[in-house]
């Protein structure tokens, strides 16, 4: 049997012309530092991306067999996948965490390339194709959200369309292009399905091919060394000599690390999928249901937070120019800074840019996970039993505090939203008169209530707020928006 198998193998090897490919893989040389130092571990993200993408193709193909891209049936088909189809929920979870892994890996890969200056000569096109791949991966993440066909996904597309609508000259056209009509509906879902399942994956496959070809033809970048700047006149010959002298082969000297890392990433994806399960779908996306609190997936949470924190004067910068210029700015990077030092120690601005971007991203994402600026629509009125001892005006004030919506944004008596100041604290620094002025006239992000409340209501509200503060001392560790 062994001999027969060997003969079959030889036959395939001969007829398929595998020898040149195998020889190429066996003999392809890489810079020796990737093996001799531990820096090689920072060169594994790109390969991992390819393998996670393959996993996405596998899980996505499975899901496409059960998913129905129709506005009436999409949500139900996802419920069916979650609850009825064997492994359906698990495969959905693998697909979601695989998408998350792709976003993490693409930014890790990009950060490594910026920090080590690997985008410089002669690898400018590697970078540019990589930037296109980055945007395609984000486009996959974005279109995938709508396919979940819940109110979060639809609201994210509404927001994206609204932002595109602000673009000069072509805003309206871009909006209709994304929506495939005038509102998010069946045509939008069909378009996003086609883009997510066919167009973007095909483009990604093609570009991965070009990207890998460029990586092989220009050679894998070597870990940089301070004092060894990139000079286009000498770099290629130096690099070829350096590789030959190092005599280090990709397979298996470097490949083992990549395989280990890919397996590690797969293990994390599988573990997350197993323990956390599939994402959504949330409530069905009924456009007439306005009592919802939508939120984008974590990859876009930083931008959602940024939109809140930006000063109004920066509206155009954040909502128009940033998304408009991000792509050309990234494409221009190697064309403007394509030579010179690559070592991070000689390029503190590059390191600071990556570090700063990470800190900003992490901070904004953390705030976005628990957004204090959203009124607490679910806050409940104070139970009557808790006010049994309170005078009538306090009880009326507590009822008005909830009914007039004050409680959506303010904490009093240990309940309420965090958008406005915690009133337990405010009572310590504001007199009832000052508080009255704020209620009547409004201040900052608080609307004026002067036209709405009767003097008796204001008195009752003040009675409740100060009564509650006396019984509910502020927690010193608790912060609130000033």
């Amino acid at each position, binding site marked *: 049997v062994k001999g027969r198998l060997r003969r079959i193998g030889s036959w395939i090897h001969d007829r398929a012309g595998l020898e040149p490919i195998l020889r190429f893989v066996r003999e392809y040389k890489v810079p020796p530092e990737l093996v001799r130092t531990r820096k090689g571990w920072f060169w594994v993200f790109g390969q991992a991306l390819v393998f996670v993408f393959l996993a996405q193709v596998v899980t996505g193909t499975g899901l496409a067999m059960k998913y129905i891209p129709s*506005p*009436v049936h999409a949500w139900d088909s996802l419920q069916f996948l979650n609850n009825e189809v064997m492994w359906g929920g698990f495969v959905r979870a693998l697909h979601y965490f695989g998408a998350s892994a792709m976003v993490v890996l693409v930014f890790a890969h990009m950060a490594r390339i910026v920090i080590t200056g690997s985008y410089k000569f002669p690898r400018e096109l590697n970078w540019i194709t990589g930037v296109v791949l980055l945007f395609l991966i984000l486009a996959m993440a974005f279109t995938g959200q709508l396919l979940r066909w819940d109110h979060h996904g639809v*609201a994210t597309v*509404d*927001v994206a*369309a*609204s*932002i595109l*609508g*602000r673009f000069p000259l072509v*805003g*309206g056209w871009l*909006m*209709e*292009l994304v*929506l*495939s*009509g*005038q*509102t*998010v*509906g*069946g*045509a939008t*879902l069909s378009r996003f399905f086609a883009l997510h399942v066919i167009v973007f994956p095909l483009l990604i496959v093609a570009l991965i091919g070009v990207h890998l070809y460029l990586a092989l033809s220009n050679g894998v970048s070597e870990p940089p060394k301070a004092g060894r700047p990139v000079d286009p006149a000498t770099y290629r010959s130096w690099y070829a000599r350096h590789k030959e002298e190092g005599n280090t082969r990709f397979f298996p000297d470097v490949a083992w690390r990549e395989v280990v890392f890919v397996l590690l990433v797969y293990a994390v994806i599988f573990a997350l999928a197993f323990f956390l399960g599939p994402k959504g779908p949330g409530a069905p*996306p*009924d*456009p*007439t*249901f*306005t*009592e*919802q*609190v*939508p939120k984008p997936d974590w990859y876009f949470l930083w931008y*959602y937070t940024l*939109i*809140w924190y930006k000063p*109004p004067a920066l*509206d155009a910068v954040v*909502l128009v120019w940033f998304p408009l210029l991000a792509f050309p700015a990234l494409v221009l990077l190697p064309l403007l800074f394509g030579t010179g030092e690559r070592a991070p120690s000689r390029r503190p601005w590059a390191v600071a840019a990556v570090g700063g971007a990470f800190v900003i991203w992490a901070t904004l994402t953390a705030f976005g996970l628990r957004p204090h*600026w*959203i*009124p607490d*629509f679910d806050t409940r009125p104070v139970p009557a039993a808790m006010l049994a001892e309170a005078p009538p005006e306090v009880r009326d004030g507590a009822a008005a505090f*909830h*009914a*007039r*919506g004050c409680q*959506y*944004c303010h904490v009093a008596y240990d309940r309420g939203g965090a*958008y406005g100041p915690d009133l337990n604290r405010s009572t310590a620094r504001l007199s009832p008169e000052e508080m009255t002025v704020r209620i009547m006239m*409004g201040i*900052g*992000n*608080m*609307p*004026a*209530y002067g036209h*709405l409340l009767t003097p008796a209501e204001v008195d009752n509200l003040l009675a409740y707020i100060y009564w509650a503060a006396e019984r509910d001392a502020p927690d010193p560790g608790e912060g609130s928006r000033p």
Partner: protein
Amino acid sequence: MDSDLHPPGPDGPELPLERRQFLAMLVLGMGGLAGTALLVPWMGLFLAAPHRSDPDTWRAVGEPDDFPIGATRKVIFRDPDPLPWAGYSGRSAAWVRRVSDDEFAAFTTYCTHVGCAVRWEEGAQLFLCPCHGGAFHADGTVAAGPPPRPLDRFPIRIHEGRVEIQAVGMPRPDDATHGGQGGGPDGESGP
């Protein structure tokens, strides 16, 4: 035997340069033509929004008596361009406020900040946005938060004894379709 059947032929004469260039141009040109022939209709399909030109986008949303003076009510109606299979996604909502006996206002549910759906809070007499805390007064003007302009409006009218809204899509910042000031009997409001 193979060598008999396929003898290594002598190197033939080189093709003239002009002929080679012509053939190269032909290959590239024909390839490009075939690609374009496929791409053009694809682009047409991709770029064209599936407008189902509904000649009448006025939608009846109730009788005038359904709207007490000073009250704000949510109304539900058909999209301007629903697909036959759109189901519930082919519906839209608006907030209709009866300002006086014969004046109505209809607001879109999209916040003018970044387009999230606003809800009406009767007790607070405010439209509140759940995304970034924007707030609008009952007349649609900005009360607080980041929205840059008042809520967009639908054209609204009283026609043949019914309150009617002209269904239009998602508003754009520069859109002239929205922005009606209020509607009365048979006198539609609009831009």
